[in-house]
């Protein structure tokens, strides 16, 4: 069945409603809306949310923007909290304590709650095989507390705890490759995606993740206008550049087999992605050309590695 954005929008009402307080131009709400739209209309969901921008903006007592059941407990344990709810479902369903309908389990966490403080809880939930999807909306820093570096922050980015100073030019470490860490858990479905080309890639991967039995993980790039320093209306432009420069390759790993979802015919140079963002501004000062070169090298080697993984796993 071919994906059709208009049809999805017309037949599937948003399950994250208007009135939430996320910033204009934030990449996270479209991600949450599209992931939730990938649910069948008749299915109920339990959403767990790590503490972060999304949580503090969508459930401020006494108002909730979520039409499904929703739980937030703390920063580092969306994985374990949802695992507990899923275990309750398995147990109560088996005992005949619940009705007929299906319930799906979806966690949302930012890169802080997922790559860093919540990594253990996520890893445990994935290893134990709970039937759930964990969605990381990766905006590449702790945005909720005011743009501090995370292990998802790209090299050289200027953040409030890795400031571009006169001696140290921003974050000096490379970003963690979380999707591959999740692949290392040998779970049935891992994918990297973002909101791009009518959201087809995001929607289809979310649908697969939700309706694959067992644990699934989605890593979704979600740009942050405040942390990255781009005009709010440019969100989709930034997303497109992330894909066309291969900064954020779109791929999925199904039962250990890699499939790259999109290979740009002509890869754009990384400058195209870096230039519109204030967090990389210092890289374009005279004398800092080496930083762009190094950044490009990292993007190239990661892309090459991905091509090889696709080749090897499809043999």
């Amino acid at each position, binding site marked *: 069945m071919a994906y059709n954005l208009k049809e999805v929008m017309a037949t599937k009402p948003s399950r994250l409603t208007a009135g939430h307080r996320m910033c204009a131009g934030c990449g996270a709400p479209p991600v949450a809306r599209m992931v939730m739209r990938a649910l069948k209309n008749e299915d*109920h969901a*339990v959403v*767990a949310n790590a503490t972060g921008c999304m*949580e*503090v903006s969508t*459930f*401020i*007592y*006494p108002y*909730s923007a*979520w*039409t*499904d*059941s*929703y*739980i*937030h*407990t*703390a920063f*580092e*344990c969306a*994985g*374990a*909290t*949802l*695992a*507990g*709810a*899923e*275990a*309750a*479902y*398995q*147990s*109560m369903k*088996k*005992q005949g*304590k*619940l*009705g007929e*309908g299906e*319930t799906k389990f979806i966690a949302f966490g930012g890169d802080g709650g997922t790559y860093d403080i919540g990594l*253990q*809880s996520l*890893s*445990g939930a994935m*290893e*134990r095989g709970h039937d759930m999807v964990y969605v990381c909306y990766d905006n590449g820093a702790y945005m909720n507390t005011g743009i501090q570096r995370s292990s998802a922050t790209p090299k050289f980015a200027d953040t409030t705890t890795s400031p571009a100073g006169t001696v140290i030019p921003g974050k000096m470490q490379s970003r963690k490759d979380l999707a591959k860490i999740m692949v290392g858990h040998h779970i049935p479905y891992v994918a990297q995606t973002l909101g791009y080309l009518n959201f087809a890639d995001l929607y289809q991967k979310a649908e697969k993740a939700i309706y694959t039995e067992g644990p699934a993980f989605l890593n979704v790039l979600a740009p942050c206008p405040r942390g990255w320093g781009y005009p709010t209306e440019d969100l989709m432009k930034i997303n497109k550049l992330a894909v066309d420069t291969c900064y954020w390759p779109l791929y999925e790993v199904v039962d250990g087999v890699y499939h790259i979802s999109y290979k740009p015919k002509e890869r754009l140079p990384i400058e195209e992605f870096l230039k519109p963002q204030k967090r990389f501004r210092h890289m374009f000062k005279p004398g800092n050309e080496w930083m762009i070169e190094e950044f490009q090298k990292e993007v190239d080697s990661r892309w090459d590695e991905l091509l090889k993984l696709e080749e090897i796993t499809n043999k």
Partner: protein
Amino acid sequence: MGIRERLSGNEAVAVAMRQINPDVVAAFPITPSTEIPQYFSTFVANGQVDTEFVAVESEHSAMSACIGAEAAGARAMTATSANGLSLMWEMIYIASSLRLPIVLNLVNRAVSGPLNIHNDHSDAMGVRDAGWIMLFSENNQEAYDNTLMAHRIAENPNVKLPLMICQDGFITSHSIENIELLEDDKVKEFVGEYKPEHYLLNQKEPIAVGPLDLQSYLFEHKAQQAEAMKNAKQVIKEVSEDFEKLTGRKYEFFEEYKLDDAEMAIVCMNSTAGTTKAVVDKLREQGVKAGLLKVRMYRPFPAEEIANSLSNLKAVAVLDKADSLNAAGGALFEDVVSGMYVNNKNVPVVNYVYGIGGRDTKETDIEEVYSDLSKIVETGKAENPYRYLGLRKGEK
């Protein structure tokens, strides 16, 4: 009536959990409570329970998963000790604030550091203001009985608070003693079914749990928690009375042992009460009017009732198996003394910090306390209220 058995404290709790048959158990091993999830996972493996056992990767995740499960509409249980409870600490507060009647068995052990695996009450004292009901148990029988009463107390609509049952690590958790168990069907009937009013898995009524709760509401929500804790007193009384009808075993907020005509008394919790009873019996034979007040219900704290119970004494010693390191006495001492002051009961009270890190507390130690108390009775004066018991001399 009842089944006579010989079980360790841990095994007794695991048997109670099997009889309760909770929907979810999420736990992580830590000495000396490890045996509880260990025994329980055998019940799961052998199909004796309907429970989903979640073998989590940490105690933080154990409590997080219990919160997720209980919010989803399940009965969730766990067990831990010491550092395990410390790692749960953040989630302990969240569990009570979400009004989730989770039941936890805490096998008391010294909290690091330095590392020590033996018994004291520093783990429990670290969560005494976290909004959990806390019941203490002298022996395996009491740990078992308190566990059977736990859900009816915690799940009562006027309460809806999590509850922890405490017992002493190794001293009772690993000692095999006689015990009287209830038949499985009687437990099932006594505990009853859990029917939560609102829960995540109710497809007909989706709910949102765990908001950002700012200046306009948090204060009121905290006051509601405090009110629920006050309500718990009446519920604990009623459930304990029902339990007595079923088993003949009487449980109150605290146990008064030969206190009626006593001149002096010790106040303590858990297994030390057993040692104290033996000493009281000996002293009574010698004509010494010694008594004991054993606190069972530590949270909510029965301040007024304890103050009244101690009001006719001439000297009281409160034994704390955890040092608050505050230059002003242990937690139980502070609770007792503040209760007496507020209720205008003026009796000399002294505090002993004892048994830290599993330091053995022998009958001779307890005799020493009563001997000190008899001097206070004679002189009417309690000098140096902050004392140690069993600390080697010269190593203070």
